[in-house]
């Protein structure tokens, strides 16, 4: 089962390597990993998408929590949450079905063209993994895909619950 794990990490040299190393050493798979500093520059937030049954996820959370730099860790998929991924696609203009492309962009308000070259356009889209997949499937039918960059999932819990570092 797909799970989203959020980790607040002390922004120390090597901390990210230790998290990633733990996952590979213990044979946990990482489907996607997103990391950046938070509003507190001393703290990074990692969002990890992985999969496993309850026992595996329980071990992943408990073993990760033993890392010295880990401030807090939560399985966001246990409760209602919001998640988003970013997609950036460069498409070629040769062979572009222009009218259909415009219609597609209108159907997806989350999509926009962020750059235009002589022979290409860059389209950006954000949404859940499923939305990104659906949008990309449509787009790739309308235009030749030259390049694709996609972020991992970022996620937060819904409502007033806040994941804060323990002190």
């Amino acid at each position, binding site marked *: 089962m797909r799970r989203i794990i959020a980790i607040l990490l002390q922004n120390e040299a*090597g901390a990210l390597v230790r998290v990633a190393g733990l996952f590979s050493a213990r044979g946990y798979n990482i489907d996607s990993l997103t990391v950046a500093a938070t509003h507190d520059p001393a703290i990074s937030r990692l969002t990890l998408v992985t999969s496993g049954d309850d026992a595996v996820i329980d071990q992943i959370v*408990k073993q990760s929590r033993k890392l010295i730099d880990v401030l*807090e860790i939560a399985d966001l998929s246990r409760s209602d949450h919001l998640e988003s991924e970013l997609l950036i696609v460069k498409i070629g203009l040769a062979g572009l079905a222009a009218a259909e492309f415009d219609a597609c962009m209108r159907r997806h308000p989350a999509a926009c063209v962020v750059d235009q070259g002589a022979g290409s356009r860059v389209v950006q889209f954000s949404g859940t993994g499923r939305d990104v997949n659906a949008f990309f499937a449509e787009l790739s039918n309308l235009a030749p895909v030259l390049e694709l960059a996609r972020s991992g999932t970022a996620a937060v819990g819904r409502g007033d619950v806040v994941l804060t570092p323990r002190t």
Partner: protein
Amino acid sequence: MNAVLEDPPETTGHPLAGAAMSGADVVVQVLADEGVEVVFGYSGGAILPVYDAVFRYNHEHPKADGAEPLPLIVPANEQGAGFMAQGYARASGRVGVALVTSGPGATNTVTPVRDAMADSIPIVVLCGQVPTGAIGTDAFQEAPISNIMAACAKHVFLVTDADRLEATLRTAFEIARTGRPGPVVVDIPKDIQNAELRFRGSGTLPLPGYRARLRAIDTATLDAARCAAFFDALGRARRPLIYAGGGVIAGDAAGALRDFARAFAMPVTTTLMGLGAVDTTEPLSLQMLGMHGTAFANYAVEDCDFLIAVGARFDDRVAGVPQAFAGGARYIAHFDVDPAEIDKVKRADWHHLGNLARALDTLRIYGLQHGFRPREQDRYAPWHAHLAALKRTHAMNYDRASAQIQPYAVIEAINAITRGRAIISTGVGQHQMWAAQYFDFREPRLWLTSGSMGTMGFGLPAAIGAQFARRDLPVIDIDGDASIRMNLGELETVTTYGLPIKVVVLNNAGDGMVRQWQKLFFKGRFSATDKSLHKKDFVRAAQADGFEWARRLADPAELPAVIAEFVAFDGPAFLEVVIDPDAGVYPMVGPGMTYAQMITGDFIASRQAQPAAVEAGPSEMF
């Protein structure tokens, strides 16, 4: 993040607060402040400033008797230093320290660091590193120690900001000794060692997550409701059994465990790492369980209806088949300090995360106050009688009539003299298991063995480290002819420092334990495990390294006299014993097998029909 806890120098109360020091001097001063009394290490270019600082410190601070306050013990190989630090830590409960240079010096300590992690042993390894400006340039003797060690250690620090050096060192000791103990590596670039600093005298790095989790475990108590739930379930049990692991030793909970077991007349079996948690000579001790546990301990695990796991983790050498392990236990209670061990292998019906000794004391007092007095009520009399019968019927035994020296007899002869009051270290293999099975262990921290990693070469350097921790006790290394070769260079270290260590090599001409598996699982094809044509003369090797007492024992008739002389010798002594090369380790619960499939060999009675000739295919299990 630069937020080192700021203590203005004048307020820390340290007599040296505010003093100007080099980074290297800071290292040595923190070691002294941490109560370090011996450092195991090997010098080299990238750690020279610290070695020089130790030299100066020892010169300037002689002890009352003129001795050095921070003696540097130099091994033959940095792996030896790591295991010496471990031996010191295992025997004393204090943090052991190794000090090595960059690159090869540091990588040589990977094995002892991983070994310490696997057995939860607190050590701090300080490594020199190339100067910060040279990191990442493929500099001479550069190795990515923080990456390598991150995968092996409890934690690793690469000090890149000299201002954080002092707090980092103090924090390293804190992390090593707290919670579930383990190894911490501090990688110190040479320019940091040479930096001009002002000593603070106190302060650690902020570790809010780690410390909050520690506090939660440290302050966890058992409330009346949890105690009641425990005794409710226990009250329905007739055959309780305590299964104690290395956590009892690491957590200094042996006293509380003994009180608990005694108060409720409960039998105890321990893991390899838990030997010494209870006095193995007591009637209710069943000695070791598991792959090579006693038959009676393993039968007791099969027969118990209530299992109390204390500081033990159901590892594959104990619970090869977790579903089948303690299959008759209707209730499992689990005490630990590591949340990740709860329900990892075997679901517990009741568990407590917290200080083991305090939890056991709380439960004992609660039980007694609430009228749980199985001892007075003779509640477990049938269970005790059953266990006594198991111990009688399935006692450890071997071929006592053999014309060849039996390894078990060697251990028994030594044990008859030391009687559970000596420190025993081992290599890895059959001799390790024979030592675990045939020695008495009366106190914690007398049994030093590489349990989880099973590292050959552990025994000799661990014995050296232990002797520095316990000058008052005899230290005996029971080693194998193959294991001792791994760190044979440390024989000389024994004589260099005049340590009265006794080294026994049980020579079965090869890798006996591997041969045992080859017999069982590979139809007796002894691929690369036979050393009968090897040329080594162990006695001459020991003599060449300065052992005045070095002998080879091959005649069984001489065994008692030679052992007596060997143990009594006042100084380092080396004894090679030529043993029956076919002697096996029994009982044996094969890898991936259940206790019901335990084979007991020809000299220990089994209560199951024994498989005629085990002709198993190559086992998938390890």
